[in-house]
């Protein structure tokens, strides 16, 4: 059952220096119970994408075109009143930095039970009970004490668990997780991600997992979208993506992920160059300046997103299995 459909979503911002194209022509579908991973560097537009889908962008600053349908109902550019009927109860978001996404002057328990009281109309005692059980579900020890704590008194990992508890309070069907582990210790990251996966399985939620770390999405997603400079450059079911990467950027991303298994003092590989200027996108493929396989055509024309194999699309003139040798080779 298709829960979320995104079609040709474009998001741009008007700035003093021109129009900034943050998201260009993104389309995908997400079914109930499935997980979609959105991967990209900072500046790739993935956060803007997740906020746009949820409808959290300010209508004054962002121009959004295209279509976002939840359960068949169009929600892009919908009035806040309509969105509020979805937020919390149908769609919820887990934010990146739990220190700033929790209100520092309100107690943790109150922030959880708030949605319960408002959306589910629970009484005070009932709400507290439910909140306590939520705290247990997200793995917080001695929830009764933690209930009255302020966010500043909890560790980073615990705060993020609280954020998850808040998001899940009213049992939403779609969870958007925007870099949920980026600010956390490496050891805690795995725990949080496992927690998210198990909660998702238990509740049959659909989940969108946004991250810059390919390693995070490798085992926890059903499908992956790779974004670069606001465009989708590759999309595939997870296994296919790792088995047969098409886009050079995806390959570069994978190679730059440091691995514990590598011998110590292995050189850290980074992708040379910088992301393009989103104000004046150059002609041609956005990755061209940094691509080790770049050819003349890449710099001239922007490759469209084509679905070569079923379920696997990419935007590249010379995808990896057909690419010639790296830079310097004769152009086709």
């Amino acid at each position, binding site marked *: 059952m298709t829960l979320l459909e995104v079609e040709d979503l474009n998001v741009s*911002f*008007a*700035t*003093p220096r021109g129009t900034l194209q943050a998201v260009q022509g993104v389309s995908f579908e997400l079914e109930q119970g499935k997980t979609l991973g959105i991967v990209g560097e900072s500046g790739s537009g993935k956060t803007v994408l997740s906020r746009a889908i949820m409808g959290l962008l300010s209508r*004054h*600053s962002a121009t959004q075109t295209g279509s976002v349908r939840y359960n068949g109902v169009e929600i892009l550019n919908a009035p806040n009143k309509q969105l509020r009927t979805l937020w919390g109860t149908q769609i919820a978001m887990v934010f990146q930095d739990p220190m700033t996404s929790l209100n520092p002057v309100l107690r943790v328990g109150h922030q959880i039970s708030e949605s319960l009281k408002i959306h589910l109309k629970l009484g005070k005692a009932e709400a507290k009970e439910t909140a306590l059980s939520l705290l247990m579900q997200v793995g917080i020890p001695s929830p009764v004490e933690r209930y009255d704590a302020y966010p500043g008194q909890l560790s980073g990992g615990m705060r993020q668990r609280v954020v998850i508890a808040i998001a899940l309070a009213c049992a939403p069907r779609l969870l958007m997780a925007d870099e949920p582990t980026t600010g956390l210790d490496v050891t805690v990251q795995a725990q949080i991600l496992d927690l998210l996966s198990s909660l998702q399985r238990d509740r049959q939620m659909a989940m969108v997992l946004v991250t810059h770390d390919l390693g995070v999405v490798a085992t926890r997603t059903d499908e992956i979208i790779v974004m670069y400079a606001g465009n989708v450059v590759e999309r595939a079911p997870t296994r296919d993506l790792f088995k047969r990467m098409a886009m050079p950027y995806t390959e570069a991303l994978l190679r730059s992920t440091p691995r514990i298994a590598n011998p110590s003092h292995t050189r850290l590989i980074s992708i040379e160059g910088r992301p393009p200027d989103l104000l004046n996108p150059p002609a041609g493929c956005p990755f061209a300046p940094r691509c080790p396989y770049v050819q003349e055509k890449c710099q001239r024309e922007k490759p469209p997103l084509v679905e070569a194999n079923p379920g696997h699309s990419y935007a590249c003139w010379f995808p990896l299995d057909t690419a010639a040798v790296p830079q310097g080779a004769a152009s086709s």
Partner: protein
Amino acid sequence: MSNVAPALAVAATPPVVEDNVVKKKLGLFFWICVGWIALIVVLAIIANLLPLPNPTFQNYNAPQNAGPAWGHILGTDDLNRDIFSRLIYGSRVSLIIGFLGGAIGMILGGVPAMFSAYRRGRVDTFLNTTSYVLLAFPAIVAVIGIVSFWTPRNIWKITLIIGIFGAPLIFRVIRASTLSYATRDFVTAAKALGASDTRILFKEIFPNLVPTIVSFGLIAVATIIVLEGSLAFLGLSVQPPTPSWGNMLYEGSQLLQGSSGQTNPWLVYFPAAAMFSLLFCLNMVADKLRSYFDVTEVKL
């Protein structure tokens, strides 16, 4: 400066902008205000050259407490003196006390602040604590006390007193600003190149302070003008018959209290309007300058 709170608190909290397209122009309104201030200053300077009736002495030929009429475009006051002429001559008091007093405060407070903030150490701690303690004593009370006993009052004494009492607050503001620059890397870089402290202060740090000094300085001037005006209203500023806007409001208010039933609304409205216009323009110019130079204000 206990009268400080509104204007200085405003100056200390720059407005947060949540707009996409931020215009960084000063705007027409800004220049109008600058022009108005300049006009007042110029008129004050050249007052002697203008064909104005005598502003200080009672003129038995003129009507008393009259409204605007041909010979006296803004009317006359209780002692038959022309209001318009008094306004022009009177502006000198506000301007001198405001700008000169402000300058005194800036030098007494600002210069030590720069050195103190840059050098840190025990001198800085001492000066900082002293300024904190000095600020605890409501300056207006002290000024009132000293001004009332140090007779005969003249404009220079008042300027000096107000300037001195303004120094602690100016010290704190300039010190805070200097601190924020002194810790930056470009200063460290200059030190590493072997620049002397004075050179660093004046060549590296000071240019960054100029916007703060100018806009805060204008606010300080406005505050001092208000302080002097309050003093005048209490009868404690320059003595009559010297014209000053504060004095005129004092006379106007005295008439309101009098049992003679005679009031002179022109003696109230015109000086009030003049004062309002000057203060408004000063605050507006100060604020526009501050927002023009404040790079942290733009938010996408």
